[in-house]
């Protein structure tokens, strides 16, 4: 049996981290797109559309991401859809992130004063134009901090894909543990790598938030 050196352990974990990063990007960007759609549904004038978005969000925020992963992975296959692990992982993470991002952004849109809607309406703008030119540019500013903050949750969420067999950082951790019998070292390193990915995002989210509050006070 070939021995793992500490460098082997670290190298393998770092290689697997690429997947963690890729998965995070996919679910964050995909989740952002779907979340945008949800946002529009959620603030739509049609009650039925609002209800759809509301129930979607309640469902995805009210059940464990782990279960969503299981169902995407083992469930969709039953309907004849071939779902490889990366697809199930990406899909579940996207749908899950979307629920949270949609809700975060709705809060930001609703934080924009009603007068902005009314003023733009009275200038003859349609709903999409109001969103595009008046509301979103303002909402985006306040959305940055919580959105960056949520990206940390996404990165941590990708750890769960290990359970459906996707070999990202966490799964690599368990596999390497089993090949080395050094759980303390391996999980310690895994935790450190996650920390190195997440902490800068957490910090910048906090800093952005503070900046924005200061900006508000100066008005």
């Amino acid at each position, binding site marked *: *049996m*070939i*021995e*793992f050196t500490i460098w*082997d352990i670290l190298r*393998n974990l770092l*290689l*697997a981290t690429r997947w963690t990063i890729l998965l995070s990007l996919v679910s964050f960007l995909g989740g952002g797109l779907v979340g945008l759609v949800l946002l529009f549904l959620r603030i739509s004038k049609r009650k039925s559309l609002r209800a759809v978005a509301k129930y979607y969000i309640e469902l995805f925020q009210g059940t464990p991401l782990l279960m969503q992963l299981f169902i995407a*992975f*083992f469930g*969709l*296959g*039953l309907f*004849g859809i*071939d*779902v*490889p692990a990366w697809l199930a992982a990406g899909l579940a993470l996207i749908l899950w992130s979307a629920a949270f991002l949609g809700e975060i952004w709705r809060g930001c849109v609703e934080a924009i004063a009603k007068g902005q809607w009314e003023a733009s309406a009275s200038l003859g703008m349609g709903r999409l134009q109001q969103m595009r030119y008046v509301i979103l540019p303002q909402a985006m500013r306040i959305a940055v901090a919580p959105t960056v903050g949520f990206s940390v949750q996404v990165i941590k969420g990708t750890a769960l894909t290990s*359970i*459906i*067999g996707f*070999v990202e950082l966490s799964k*690599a951790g*368990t*596999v390497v*543990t*089993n*090949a080395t*019998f050094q*759980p303390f070292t391996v999980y310690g390193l895994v935790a450190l790598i996650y920390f190195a990915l997440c902490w800068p995002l957490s910090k910048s989210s906090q800093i952005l938030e503070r900046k924005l509050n200061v900006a508000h006070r100066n008005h």
Partner: protein
Amino acid sequence: DALGDITARGTIRVAVPQDFPPFGSVGPDMAPVGYDIDMANLIAEKLGVKVELVPVTSANRIPYLQTNKVDLVISSLGKNPDREKVIDFTAAYAPFYNGVFAPADFVAAKPEELAGKTIGVTRGAVEDLELTKIAPADTVIKRYEDNNGTISAFLSGQVEAVATGNVVAAAILAKNPPKRPELKFLIKNSPCYIGLSKEQPALLEKVNGIIAAAKTDGSLNAIAQKWLGTGLPAEL
């Protein structure tokens, strides 16, 4: 039909373990290696297609097949009536003796003596099903998601003993672990079969043919020698 799909695709998707030495584990480059991997390669080669190895755990091997994520499960898969209800099996291709393993100071020569003890097992494996049947009611059975969990639990002392295959225990032993799994007693002889979806006679027949040929031409024996350290037993 599965065989047609495989040839059309030019690739066969095979579920293999990566947490279950010597059938499947990873080297320092994280690539899967082991008995089952060699077996998968052999079959692909004989079918004249490329192989796509899909790492699975004991618990999700069968759902992988059920949900058509793989064409074959070559993952030290034992046969029992429950499994036969949902998937089909080829001929056996490897020996597998389930047993209870523990460090030297653990005393239990037969199932009854497991009373009050804590045994780790991988959920959904044959060992799990068998142990659940034969162990006394007050045996504490801890069922882990995959073999990584079971082995980690044993090595970190979270369970006193594990139920697994004899060669598995031997492979762990070979790596000089902090806790040495020694055989206490055997539970069951449950050789490994290749699993495939129900009602795929063409594929079944084809794979059975390959296994039979490999047995006669000695290539299967070579794989056994390489990973188990002995040749194939006579009963196979």
